[in-house]
């Protein structure tokens, strides 16, 4: 069999993998923070340690996986090749990973210079990536929901990072701006216009392709991301204008749109043609269930006083959406992307003389299953920590460290397969030349 990708156009494997290998380190740091801060971390979403924990997941774990995955998905799904991919990856990875570390340290110390560094590094890293992606997509017609969805999601990422940088600078330099209002908008853009949109845009391809489900209904796929982004825009405008009722209505429409995506995806997953559901199928299914619950919780809390006044519902919403929803989906995607990347690059290197290993041997299913169980144990313990922090926060911290150490081990195993087979290919080529 012949090569599948020419090397001059395929991004080097180290470009996306550096992001994937860094992501679990942020989640392990989140586990350490849980152990260090203890039960008080769940007292309020505004506690410094709680903000640090949230950003270890969002600006750390999730951003790293999503940026790494986009490096690979833009050429494969959209046909957009990032110019100088290794150089872009180096700058973006260094800038965003140090930026997320600075942001965590800034929340824990409230040192103004750390907020400044975090804003500069995260904004620079993300803007470099956005510029590279925009250049790669120049001239590509958005003729399917994934391309349009990715373009709009990247716009959402830009607004999320710029509002985040503004908030960080305002906190560091004591600027007099409406911090609470801006924080809620930053959250809306980050969770919906960026994270949910990019997940949906990728899901329109990845769910039918990897989970062997029917295609998303075409009208739904075409309308979802533009509608979601439109709702976020209207929510932002009405909130800034001080129209409280309209703001609540558009925020509710945004959340309802996200819930609809989760329900449609659950319906498709139920109709999968897979003979046996693997771990990636379960990651997707539990993520969509968590997303649905999170959206339902948010909507009920807005309109039912009893729940709305319970101080812990925002924390429960955050754990359901971020760890149960986004983190589970990204794990499901990682376990498809990484074995495929290793196989693809080995296939290219082998040039038909040395066959690449079967993808199932790049990362054995049993190892993925074990890590999946550890992830869901950590998730369940974190959910329980919201209600019984004194009892559950320490086991949750330990479980989070363990599940992400396991993820790192699995990724390192795949890299080991890549290196060993790469060496075998080199040896075969040398023997053929001799």
């Amino acid at each position, binding site marked *: 069999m012949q090569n*599948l*990708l020419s090397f001059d156009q395929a991004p080097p494997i180290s470009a996306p993998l550096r992001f994937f290998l860094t992501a679990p380190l942020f989640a392990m740091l989140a586990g350490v923070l849980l152990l260090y801060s203890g039960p008080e971390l769940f007292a309020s979403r505004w506690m410094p340690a709680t903000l640090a924990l949230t950003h270890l997941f969002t600006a750390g774990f999730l951003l790293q996986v999503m940026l790494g995955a986009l490096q690979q998905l833009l050429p494969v*799904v959209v046909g957009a090749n990032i110019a100088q991919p290794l150089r872009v990856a180096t700058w973006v990875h260094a800038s965003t990973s140090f930026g997320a570390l600075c942001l965590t340290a800034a929340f824990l110390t409230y040192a103004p210079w750390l907020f400044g560094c975090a804003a500069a590094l995260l904004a620079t890293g993300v803007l470099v990536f956005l510029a590279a992606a925009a250049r790669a997509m120049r001239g590509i017609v958005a003729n399917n929901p994934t391309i349009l969805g990715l373009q709009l999601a990247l716009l959402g990422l830009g607004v999320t990072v710029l509002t985040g940088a503004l908030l960080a600078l305002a906190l560091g330099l004591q600027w007099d701006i409406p911090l609470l209002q801006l924080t809620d908008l930053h959250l809306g853009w980050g969770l919906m216009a960026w994270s949910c949109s990019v997940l949906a845009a990728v899901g329109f*391809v990845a769910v039918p392709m990897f989970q*062997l489900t029917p295609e998303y209904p075409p009208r739904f796929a075409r309308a979802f991301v533009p509608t979601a982004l439109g709702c976020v825009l209207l929510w932002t405008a009405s909130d800034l204008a001080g129209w409280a009722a309209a703001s609540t209505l558009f925020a509710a429409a945004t959340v309802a749109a996200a819930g609809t995506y989760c329900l449609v995806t659950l319906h498709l997953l139920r109709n999968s043609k897979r003979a046996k559901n693997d771990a990636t199928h379960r990651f997707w299914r539990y993520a969509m269930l968590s997303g649905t619950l999170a959206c339902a919780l948010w909507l009920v809390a807005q309109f039912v006083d009893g729940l709305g006044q319970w101080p812990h519902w925002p924390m429960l919403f955050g754990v359901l959406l971020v760890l149960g929803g986004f983190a589970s989906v990204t794990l499901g995607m990682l376990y498809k992307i990484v074995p495929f990347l290793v196989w693809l690059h080995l296939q290219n290197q082998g040039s038909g003389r040395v066959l690449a290993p079967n993808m199932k041997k790049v990362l054995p299913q049993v190892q993925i299953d074990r890590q999946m169980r550890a992830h869901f144990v950590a998730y369940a313990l974190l959910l329980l920590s919201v209600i019984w922090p004194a009892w559950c926060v320490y086991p949750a911290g330990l479980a989070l460290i363990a599940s992400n150490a396991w993820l790192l081990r699995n990724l390192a195993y795949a890299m080991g397969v890549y290196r060993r087979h790469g060496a075998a290919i080199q040896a075969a080529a040398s023997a053929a030349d001799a």
Partner: protein
Amino acid sequence: MIPQVVAQVVDGHGLEPPEPFVLTMDALDACPSGQAVLLLLPREPHPLYRALQAQGFAYQTERTAQGSYQIRIWHKSA
């Protein structure tokens, strides 16, 4: 000239990547000169296009009314 005779049809519907790519490349290895391989897929295979260009194959893509893709592939020297 586009070969009209199809040596092999590869139906990629319901197959998980990279199976359609592997089957297509294997079919091209066995494809006689002057004939084509027809690949059926639910979406455009961008990585495959690049591999085909790099290895001297020509292709023609048609989008069907149902939204799926038919890619006819043949060797340029044919």
